[in-house]
Structure formats: structure tokens, C-alpha cells
């Protein structure tokens, strides 16, 4: 009979099984959390207070409490299956759209984007990263950017690289496709730049980002002062370096080599100075181009790059107040590049494929140096607002009289850490010899991030 009598808690028993189990599942983490919280609170209270008689707890009780405490810690730790920033693999997506108006068409500016009004989905960048094993981590950056001609999204691997995490002697080895450590702004992505476009000198001398397929070794010099030394070799450096000609047997001197040494000084608690010197050489760049003339000059002669060299001095002087650096700050960054290339001049153009591509014996080798630099100042006056000016100056690598200068002013509004809109005005002056004309441009760049993102060392 007793079995038929309703119990006090019969309401819960009448719930359908599936609803009850669903409720249990939903509440389980909360219940576990609350139990842990109460246990911990009780334990802390016990630990901090002597017993009612004011006597200390006996060692056996203390040991039991500590054992219980350890078990609770293990439960908590077990719940942390992964660190939140490190889902395996960590995945993030960056989107970047550039709206612009340029006063002249691309035929008059040399731009690969149309003049007038333009909307360009410059990048949709998928970032993936995880530890490969206890000794290496791996990451990849897959970028889909709109083709300037067709508008179709072209998928490309910007980076896919393996980085050591446990080498001795302060060494880090990186291999694969990555942005080589050369200069200061060549090895960061477009959306991380402090302004809309990559400086002209980096565009012309490096080819934009310092992308390479190669190998790089970094050494933190084991002294009390920060000194970092990097050396690497790779199949090209920069976005405009094409693959080796099929069928060629490549010599070691046809690879690309770079090095960088950088250091840093605390000028005061709030003032920082960082500087670096980089060098790059491709001893035989003509091997890559298979002696095909790169440029046909106005007089019909051709000019072909046979060796590529570049030196880069960079510095960054910044005010980063310890107390409120999220709300104010100042950065002055400058990079000076000297390009020193060797060229083969062919007066009669016989080396050009259209003329049979044969040497006629009149070719001469020349060396040409050219200087490029940019300098910018960015001031941050609010967590959301910053602005600055950028000055660009670059001499063409094969003709130092062909000078392009640009002057930009920009304002950035970061609604949050993951969303920013930048307005920029740029006035560009071309040398008349280049055939291009001065132009003005207004850009609105909108960049956003979803998912995992890192506060990387290169972006500091």
C-alpha cells in the first residue's frame, strides 16, 4: 500500500524521463560548480579559523582537508580540457574591406586597382594554429583576396609554417612559408599596419610582405640586454618573386639570404626605443628570371636584374605609458632602405624573347643604387581613437631619378579590439619621367576579427 501513496517530491518524479534527463544535463555543470564553490569556501573557512575552542586543528584533520582540497583541484583542472585561447587548433578569421576613391585611373597611377570609386575585399584571412608536438607549433594563414581584374576570390597560402618551441641555446627554427624577419613592417599582415597601405619602399623593394618559402633561425643573445639575431634563406623574398624557371638547375647563390639584428632600450618607464638592421641578398637573381628581360626601356633597350641586394635600417620610438597605455600613446616609426642591384643592359634588345633571346655581345652590366624610406607618427588619444601622418619616398630600384612620394593622414576608430575603421587621405606625387601623374585618394578600411587572435611578438 505504501508504494501507492504519493511522496512529497512526487512532482519531479512525474516529469517525463527525457525532460528530466535534459534538465539534469543542463544543470549538471552549474550544480558541479556550485558544489565546488561551497566546498572550497568551507575549506577556506576551516583553514583560516581555529576550531571552536581556539585550538589548532589536529594534523589528521588537516591532512584530510588538504587531501580533499587536492581532489577538488583535480576536478577543476580536469574541467579545463583546453585553454580557451587554444582550441585545438585555434581558429580565427580576419576580414578587411577597402572602400576608396582615387582621382585618376590606374593607367595614370600604375595601381593594380581601378581609379575612381572602388570597393575591394582585400583579404579574408583564415588563421589556424596549434602545437604540432612538444617540440614544434604550426600555423597557417590562408587568404582569399579579390582578383583586381576578375573580382573572383583567389585563394592563397600566405603562411604555413612550423616553428620550434624547445630548441636549446635560445634558438628558434622556422621552416615553411612565412613572412621573413626583415625590417619592421614587412613581416606583418596588411590589416595589422598602422595605416591602410603598405609603404611604397616596402612595396617596390620587397614586393609587399616579406613572404618566403624558406628556413629561418633566430637567436636570442644570452646577455642582460635584449639583442635578437635572425638569419634565413629562402626561395624568394616578397610577393613579386616568381618561381625558378622550370628545367633550370639552381645553384646555391640563386637562393635568397637575409639577416637581421635588433635591439631595444628602455629610455624611461614610459619611453621605448627599438631599432634593427637588416640585410638581404639574392646573389644571382637572373637565374630566377632565366635572363628574360624584365623591362623594355624607352630607347628599345632591355634591362634585366641579375643580382638583388637590400639594406634596411629601422627604428621605433614610442611613448607607452605604464598606467594608461590603453588610452594614450605615441609611436614614431621609420624605415630606411637602400637597394643595390646589378642589371644587364641590352642596347639592341636582342635578349628579349621576341627577338630570339640571344646575346649579341653588346650587353653591359651595371650597378644601381636607390633609396627609399617612410616615416610615420601615430598618436592615440582614446581607447577607441588614434590618428597620424605618414610620409613615403622611394626611388625606383633600377632608376633613382624615378621618384615617387606620398603624404598620408589617417584616423582610426576602433570600436573594440576586434573591429576598426580607418579613414585615410593620400596625395601621391610621381616623377613625370615615369609616365604617371599625381593623384589623390581617400580610403576607408574596415577590418574585423572573429575567433582566436593572438597578441603576437611581431605586432607589439
Amino acid at each position, binding site marked *: 500500500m505504501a508504494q501507492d501513496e504519493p511522496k512529497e517530491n512526487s512532482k519531479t518524479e512525474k516529469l517525463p524521463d527525457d525532460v528530466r534527463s535534459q534538465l539534469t544535463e543542463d544543470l549538471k555543470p552549474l550544480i558541479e560548480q556550485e558544489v565546488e564553490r561551497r566546498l572550497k569556501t568551507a575549506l577556506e573557512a576551516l583553514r*583560516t579559523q581555529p576550531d571552536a575552542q581556539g585550538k589548532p586543528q589536529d594534523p589528521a584533520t588537516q591532512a584530510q582537508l588538504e587531501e580533499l582540497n587536492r581532489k577538488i583541484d583535480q576536478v577543476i583542472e580536469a574541467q579545463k580540457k583546453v585553454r580557451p585561447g587554444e582550441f585545438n587548433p585555434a581558429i580565427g578569421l580576419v576580414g578587411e574591406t577597402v572602400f576608396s576613391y582615387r582621382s585618376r585611373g590606374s593607367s595614370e597611377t600604375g595601381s593594380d586597382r581601378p581609379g575612381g570609386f572602388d570597393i575591394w575585399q582585400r583579404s579574408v584571412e583564415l588563421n589556424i594554429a596549434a602545437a604540432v608536438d612538444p617540440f614544434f607549433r604550426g600555423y597557417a594563414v590562408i587568404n582569399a583576396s579579390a582578383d583586381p581584374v576578375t573580382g573572383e576570390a583567389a585563394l592563397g597560402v600566405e603562411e604555413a609554417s612550423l616553428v620550434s618551441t624547445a630548441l636549446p641555446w635560445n634558438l628558434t627554427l622556422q621552416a615553411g612559408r612565412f613572412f621573413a624577419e626583415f625590417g619592421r613592417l614587412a613581416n606583418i599582415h596588411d590589416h595589422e599596419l598602422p595605416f591602410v597601405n603598405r609603404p611604397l619602399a616596402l612595396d617596390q623593394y620587397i614586393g609587399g610582405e616579406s613572404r618566403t618559402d624558406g628556413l629561418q633561425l633566430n637567436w636570442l643573445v644570452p646577455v642582460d640586454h635584449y639583442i635578437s*639575431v635572425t638569419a634565413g634563406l629562402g626561395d624568394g623574398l616578397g610577393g613579386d618573386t616568381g618561381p625558378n624557371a622550370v628545367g633550370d638547375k639552381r645553384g646555391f647563390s640563386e637562393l635568397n639570404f637575409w639577416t637581421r639584428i635588433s635591439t631595444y632600450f628602455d629610455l624611461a618607464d614610459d619611453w621605448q626605443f627599438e631599432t634593427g638592421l637588416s*640585410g638581404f641578398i639574392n646573389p644571382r637573381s637572373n637565374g630566377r628570371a632565366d635572363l628574360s628581360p624584365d623591362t623594355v626601356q624607352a630607347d628599345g633597350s632591355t634591362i634585366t636584374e641579375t643580382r638583388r641586394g637590400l639594406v634596411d635600417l629601422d627604428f621605433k620610438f614610442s611613448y607607452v605609458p605604464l598606467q594608461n597605455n590603453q588610452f594614450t600613446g605615441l609611436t614614431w616609426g621609420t624605415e630606411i632602405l637602400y637597394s643595390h642591384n646589378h642589371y644587364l643592359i641590352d642596347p639592341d634588345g636582342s635578349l628579349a624573347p621576341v627577338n630570339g633571346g640571344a646575346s649579341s655581345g653588346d650587353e653591359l652590366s651595371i650597378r644601381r643604387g636607390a633609396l627609399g624610406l617612410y616615416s610615420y607618427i601615430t598618436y592615440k588619444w582614446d581607447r577607441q581613437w588614434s590618428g597620424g601622418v605618414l610620409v613615403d619616398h622611394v626611388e625606383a630600384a633600377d632608376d633613382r631619378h624615378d621618384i615617387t612620394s606620398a603624404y598620408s593622414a589617417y584616423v582610426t576608430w576602433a570600436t573594440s579590439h576586434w573591429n576598426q575603421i580607418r579613414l585615410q587621405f593620400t596625395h601621391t606625387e610621381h616623377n613625370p619621367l615615369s609616365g604617371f601623374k599625381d593623384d589623390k585618394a581617400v580610403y576607408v578600411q574596415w577590418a574585423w576579427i572573429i575567433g582566436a587572435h593572438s597578441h603576437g611578438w611581431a605586432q607589439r
Partner: protein
Amino acid sequence: MKTLMKWTAPIAFSLAAAFLCAADPAAKDEIRVVTTLTDLADFARAVGGNYVTVRSLATGIEDTHGVPMKPSFVPTLNRADLMILIGFDCEHAFLPALLEASKNPNIQYGRPGYVDCAKGITPAEIPKSTDHSEGDVHPYGNPHYMLDPVRARQAIGTITEALIAKAPEYEADFKKNRDAYLAKLDSKITEWQEKLKPLKGAAFVSYHGHWFYFAERFGMVYYGTIELKPGIDPTTRHIESLISSMKADHVPVVVREPQFPEKVPALIAEQTGAKLIKLPIMPGGVPHTETYIEMMDYIVKSFVEAVPKK
């Protein structure tokens, strides 16, 4: 190739010189401890005594989430035996990159030298979602547990364990130092509880969500934050709404942490008639708060003076 050789010579010379200079002057028996924040450094010094050299990355005036990533930290981290941190992703904006740059395998995540003081702390305010629509949330929960001195005791225990694991020969001394410090701290906890007893139920707001654990420990009411969401500045609507509800509920105190601008907290205090107080969030945040106990003394005194007597 000649140019390559020309480059190679000075670089090789620099590297050789660096190797010659690489003798480590600090390579003694002392345990080299680096902490992210100053409260951890204070505890490490108290427990480690003469056996440790301690350096904190923060000086005390920084935002706990925004310590600048200075390259000058890297050599220090490179030689550290222990890296002591708050945990719960408190330092996520600066520590992972610094650890990677340090090239010190002993202090990387999961290694014995990586001392996460959140171990054993039960977190509060664990977000239901880590979506960025909730701002820069901490997935493990609120990381500002150091402002609760009872939870800080747990961190001292973790630091002691790490020091013993590193140098078991000094275990007795570490335990003795720990017990001496805890005795002092316990006496202060009793004192702070007594002083704050009259403030039980008193409400306050602050700029960032630093004060949940403090309020819970001392029976005060943490009314809300001036920030809209963690890391997201307040909107006009949020400020208006906060002022309106604070007036209705007679919230008597606005706390401004020194890392945040005074303008909005001052406006809210003025509009609501609340008292504005500037409080440190770690030792050294304001003058005369160089140790954890001095800091807590300052915080308790400030609250006692700011909350009207009933």
C-alpha cells in the same frame, strides 16, 4: 657571393662577441623568480626570503591586462627559474608572446616553472558565453581574486609549493616564512573584517570588474561596472542608465582604478552624489601601497572613509 661573405664577417664577429659576453652574472644559487604582477612578487619575496631574486613585470600602476610587452623583459624571462602568474587568462594580452620570445622552455605553459596561482581558486563570474558580444571576457571566470585576501592565501600556498619543488633543500625555511607571513596576514584579515563590518550591504560601482571577490569577502554589494562590457568603454546610454539606477538605489561609492580615465567616474559620482575614490588593484598602484598588506590597508581605509556612517 663576395657580398654575402662581406656580410657574414661582421655578423660572425658580433655573434662571437655575444657568446663571450654571455657569462651569466646572476647564475648563483638564488632562485630567479619573475612575476606578472606586484602582489605575486610581494608574496614570492615573503616566502622565498634570501633564497630568491624577484622581479615583477608590472610596477603596480599598470592595468592587470595591459602590461606593456617590453623587449627588456625578455632577457629576464630567459633566465627565470619560475614564472608566477595570476592565471584565469588575466595576462593573456601580454604573457603568451613574452613567454614565446623568452625561449626559456622551463617556464612555458605546463612546465614546472610555469606557476599558475589560479590553481585551487574557485572562479566566480564564469561567462555563459565567450562570444565577443560579451566584450573581452575571461573564459575561466573573473581573474581578480587577489583582492580577496583569503583567496590570496591560496596563491601564497601555490607559490610556496613551487619554491619547494624548485629547491627542496630550503623547504623548512620556505614553510617557516610562509607561516610567518600567513600569521600576519590572518591577523590583518580579522582586522579588515572588523573595520568593514559596518559597511555590510554597502554598494559601490567601479570602472572595471575588479571588485567581485573583495565585495563577496567583506559582505559589500558590487553594484556594477562603468565599462559597458569588459574592455568596452561605456556608451552614453549605459552611463545614463547607471546614474539613474544608482540614484534610485542610493549607491554611495564610485571606485576608479588609476588605470582608467577619471572623467566618466567623476561625472557619475557628481550626478549621483556618490563619493569618488581612487583605489589600487595591485601593490604600488597608488603611493604608500608597496606591499599587499599596505595596499589592502589603503583599500579598507578608503572604503571606511567613503561610505557614510549609518
